[in-house]
């Protein structure tokens, strides 16, 4: 391998090393440490290690206690499960909302498409936090949604939406919608209209043609969109803590509480490490999907 190639590969890898592997190593080290009333709140630390035997004692003090603790307290595995359920269901809902949107965008007259595309990504231009807080004033009992529903006469008394899981679903679907719409749109836009004509010519109704041609051909986009929503939704922390209630159990929230309320950094780190390990599977699947798609396009 010549030097140029080596250099080109070195750049992204050192980036990865600096921004992912080193922080991960630090978190892992904390997860293997013990809680202590100190600054930082764990022992042992790497401070003051001067020679090899110091380092050996340091290593001998690391253990898997925190990970074992995670399996003993049912709060944690229930939080992981409930996060997975919420992430899965909200991914499904995002797909149900996002697919028709992407479809309409792809079918729109070509002069409208850039505008529609901009509208889809417009929310990214303001702070995510502000948008989530805005939902509070929409969903609360005196909020706009309840006012409209009362005014229309659909309901007699205000609904309790804020501080429930429903609000969390709404928040996640709203926040991650562009991540679903964009890849699905990209797949649908490439779709050749003559394929639908060919399907109709061969005896398909419009709906059958959609089901047998449009859907399979947008599958790579659908899969990409689902992963792009599911992966961040699984570790989501802001949405459940702002919109969710006390009974909303999500691992991101647990993580936050361990770090900042309990100040138990080692347990919090262990929670984070497990979350990361759980995410590796969908991330690998996602990469495989992308790879397959690239090969098919060759």
């Amino acid at each position, binding site marked *: 391998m010549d030097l140029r190639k080596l250099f080109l590969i070195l750049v992204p890898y050192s980036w990865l090393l600096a921004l992912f592997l080193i922080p991960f190593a630090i978190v892992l080290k904390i997860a293997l440490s013990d809680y202590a009333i100190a600054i930082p709140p764990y022992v042992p630390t790497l401070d003051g290690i001067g020679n090899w035997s110091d380092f050996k004692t340091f290593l001998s003090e690391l253990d898997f206690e925190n990970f074992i603790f995670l399996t003993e307290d049912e709060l944690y595995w229930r939080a992981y499960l409930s996060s997975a359920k919420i992430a899965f269901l909200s991914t499904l809902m995002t797909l149900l909302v996002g697919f028709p949107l992407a479809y309409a965008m792809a079918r729109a007259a070509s002069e409208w498409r850039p505008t529609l595309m901009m509208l889809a990504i417009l929310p990214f231009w303001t702070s995510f936090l502000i948008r989530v807080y805005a939902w509070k004033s929409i969903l609360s009992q005196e909020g706009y949604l309840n006012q409209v529903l009362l005014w229309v006469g659909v309901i007699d008394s205000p609904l309790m939406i804020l501080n429930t899981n429903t609000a969390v679903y709404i928040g996640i679907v709203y926040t991650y919608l562009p991540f679903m719409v964009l890849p699905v749109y990209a797949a649908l836009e490439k779709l*050749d209209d*003559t394929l639908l*004509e060919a399907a109709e*010519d*061969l*005896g398909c109704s419009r709906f059958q043609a959609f089901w047998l041609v449009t859907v399979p051909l947008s599958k790579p986009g659908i899969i990409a969109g689902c992963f792009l929503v599911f992966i961040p939704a699984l570790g989501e922390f802001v949405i459940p803590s702002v919109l969710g209630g006390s009974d909303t159990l999500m691992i991101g929230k647990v993580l936050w509480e361990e770090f900042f309320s309990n100040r138990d950094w080692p347990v919090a780190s262990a929670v984070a490490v497990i979350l990361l390990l759980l995410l590796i599977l969908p991330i690998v699947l996602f990469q495989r999907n992308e790879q397959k798609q690239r090969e098919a396009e060759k």
Partner: protein
Amino acid sequence: MAFDSGSAAFAPWEDPGQKPLISFKSVTKRFGNFTAIDNLTLDIFEKEFFALLGPSGCGKTTLMRMLAGFEAPSEGTIMLDGQDIGPIPPNKRAVNMMFQSYALFPHLSVADNIAFGLKRSDMPKSEIAGRVEEMLSLVQLSQFASRRPHQISGGQRQRVALARSLAKAPKLLLLDEPLGALDKKLRQETQFELMDIQEKTGTTFVIVTHDQEEAMTVASRIAVVNHGKLVQVAPPDRIYEAPNSIYVADFIGDVNIIKGLAKPESDNRYAIQWCENHAPIIGTSQHAFASDDICHFAIRPEKVSITRDRPTDRTNTMQGKVLEIAYLGNISTYHVELPTGQVIKAQQANNRRISRRSFTWHDSVWLSFTDTAGVLLSQ
């Protein structure tokens, strides 16, 4: 048809009692303010092999798409089997189309592409596999059944598209340049297959092609289209031997056009005054020309003989000098310059070896043709 060996010639268009299968009635198609099909009236009969020939952009595909149901005429009606097909959606028409761009489903294998239409029909599941197999062997793609479209060559894709449109054995089959990407040998084989299928199934074919030879080989009638209008509709031999305009004569095959003034002699014989100090060309015409009408004498190069000495048994002779020789293997085309500066093409079969050929560049030669060899055209 070029290979028609049947007893009575197949010519339903000459029989006024015959009902056409397809009938375009004053059909106009506009895209915005562009007129793609211009007030077109045309009858196509059952079991015909109807070829559409014309330059790029003349409206051939548009005509097909109206038959398949993807475009509605802006004006006029299209009848299929005596029924106005305007309101019938594409999936309810007994018509299948092979798309110019093939439109193969990229997510399905070759076999599944071919089976696609069959699965939507009422064919029992057990018979579908057999039919697909039959189609695959017809287009010689049996060993590629499980490949995806992007894993086969362009010509193979074209054959899959052809097989897919044939699979349902529709009443009317529309083929938009079905054989363009095939090599000559495979194309000829497929042409004969198509004619064979047509003979066996009695399917009516409408085929678009840019290849005149192909149209000549397969078609019962050829329609020459230009700017969304029909210029001439006739059997291949009539199109070739009796074109109705310079456009058709020039579009199909090679032709010499000599402009002159018509001088009626007797019956349908005319003397064509084409050059002041040269004897007029004697020709015949089915159409009447008045004295001194401007006319164009059109003659195919292969009807012009080329000899070293002046022939005595031909009505028309003219002397010239060989300007250029185009060697095409089986035949050669000689470009002969007349003293008037006009260049006439004459064709001769190369039945001798090239080294023993009698004429070469700058030779003085005689061109000759009979009085019935050419046609007189007014425009």
